[in-house]
């Protein structure tokens, strides 16, 4: 609600997000579009509890972000929010299956259940056969699908994706959009920051950020 986020950049102050008020409900599929530097990533970080607003309030599942300590916020992100990044950020030393198991192990899920859930999620994103491959042995599209599987590991309420198709070709972007659409149909809320018009058009709702302000 009326969220502002500014940064000090040398002598000047950059207003990345200016007075944004918005709500994400369960089952939403929201695309936030805008040009580079318009504040999309900052807004996504604020929504996911990675950043705190300079002014205004962000509520996550009813809790005010400002009131949560680092440990509580981390727990909240672990269990309720899934993150997908443009550059995947998979751990190169671990296999696809192990990458998917990571959030499960942090949540305290036992080894056997971790393995079963990771196998199921990799099958869900069409990578069952690539489970033991390391990220370096996968294509960009496959890596992003592993990242989506990792984001879904703890069955979050919302999946936040920052330019998820930014590093992918047309065919892989299409595959990611289809995956997102099917996840949304299953009830998962998605917020996607993108300047990929094709991906934005696939969402149920579209918001455009211009210089940190919501347009329309």
């Amino acid at each position, binding site marked *: 609600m009326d969220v502002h986020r500014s940064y000090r950049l040398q002598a000047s102050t950059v207003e990345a997000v200016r007075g944004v008020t918005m709500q994400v409900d369960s089952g939403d599929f929201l695309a936030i579009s805008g040009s580079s530097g318009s504040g999309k*990533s*900052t807004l996504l*970080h604020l929504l*996911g509890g*990675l*950043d705190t607003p300079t002014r205004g309030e962000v509520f996550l599942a009813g809790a005010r972000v400002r009131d949560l300590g*680092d*440990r509580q916020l*981390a*727990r*909240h*992100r*672990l*269990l309720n*929010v*899934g*993150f997908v*990044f*443009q*550059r995947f*950020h998979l*751990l*190169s*030393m*671990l296999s696809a299956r*192990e990458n998917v*198991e*990571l*959030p*499960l*192990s*942090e*949540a305290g899920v036992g080894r056997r259940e*971790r393995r079963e859930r990771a196998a199921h999620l990799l099958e869900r994103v069409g990578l069952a056969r690539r489970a033991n491959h390391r990220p370096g042995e996968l294509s960009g599209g496959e890596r992003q699908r592993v990242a989506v599987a*990792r*984001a879904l590991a*703890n069955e979050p309420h919302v999946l936040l994706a*920052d*330019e998820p198709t*930014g590093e992918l070709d047309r065919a892989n972007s299409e595959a990611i959009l289809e995956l997102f659409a099917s996840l949304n149909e299953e009830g998962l809320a998605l917020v996607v920051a993108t300047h990929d018009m094709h991906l934005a058009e696939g969402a149920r709702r579209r918001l455009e950020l211009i210089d940190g302000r919501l347009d329309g």
Partner: protein
Amino acid sequence: MLWRFSYRELLGHPLRSSLVVLGVSVATAMMISMLMLGAGIGRSFAELLVARGYTLRVSPRGTLPLETRATLSDIELLSLDLLGQAEVAGVAPALAANLLLRPTAGVASADPQGSRVFALGIDPDEQGVYRLVDGQAPRGVGEVVIGSELASEGFDVGDGMKLDRPGDFASPASGDDYEIVGVAQFVYTSKGERPIAMRLDDLQALTLRADAASFLMIRLHPGIDPTAAAERLRTMFPQAEIASVAELVARAEARLSYFRQMALVLGAVSLFVAVLLVGTLMSVSINDRYGSIAALRAIGFSRQSLVTAFASEGLVLCVVAGFLGLGLGLMVAGYLDSVLSDFPGLPLAVEFFVLEPGDLGTGYLTLVLAGLLATLVPAWRAASLDIAKTLHREEP
């Protein structure tokens, strides 16, 4: 799960990890060696002095045993007086002198005039300067036992040898004849010395020092405190220097304080180098992974989980390197000990580097804990990074 990421990160950079393990091993070896040196001299010296149970030493006033050529006089009377004291169980006089060993038939000699030997005159029934390994003690007039050095030159039990006072170069044929009756291991022999032992009165006669001794060794009855006994005997015999082994060790340690300080400084520097190496590697390694760390924090990993994972990396490095360093340290200490034992005038039995499991354990644990602390700083810094800012930087 995260520990797997950490360990594979170490294994994934084999050259970097190996170099650090090697560096920390060398630093550990230095630290362990210095620890052994610092503690070793005193312990080894004490063990040497209490050899064969003689816990007090009597030497000429103002000197330490064998420190000077000064001798105690009227030692027969002095020995009897000492034996008359309630706490004294035995008195072993010893006279030390350099003698000239004249060329002997059947044994090669580099110098036609003869060569030096270090002679000790002792009471064969009350002595603490050698352990007999072959033959018998020199109980008869004209009998000697020789050290392994002369035995290795070809002398053996039953052979004869001609001994003379040094400086008496009148004739290579001069000197008195002695018979070798035993081979012994001498306690206080220095590198290059060729020790022999004979009856005290024999050596006194040969060196023209009647009723004299370089020092006396005193054996106390069981249960008597040597330091208290030394203090009491000092008041009764003010003409002599009487000291317990503990007091002699303290004096020796005071003289060797340079070694201890050097060992302490070098040990501390080695530990510091090891900590710097681990800290530097972990800083570089963690800095390389800022993007992954920010992503892990974003997907819900707590600071504690990440710090634990990174700390375990540092711990593995220190445990492995410390273990290698222990072995290397023992090898270095052994080599340096052999070099330092060549110091002239030092008994061969004195060891500079003494292996004490407790000290090694302390050194090892200190290294591991210091390495762990060195890891915690970059680990906590990384775990506390601004997630949003780091992701902004990492993403295009």
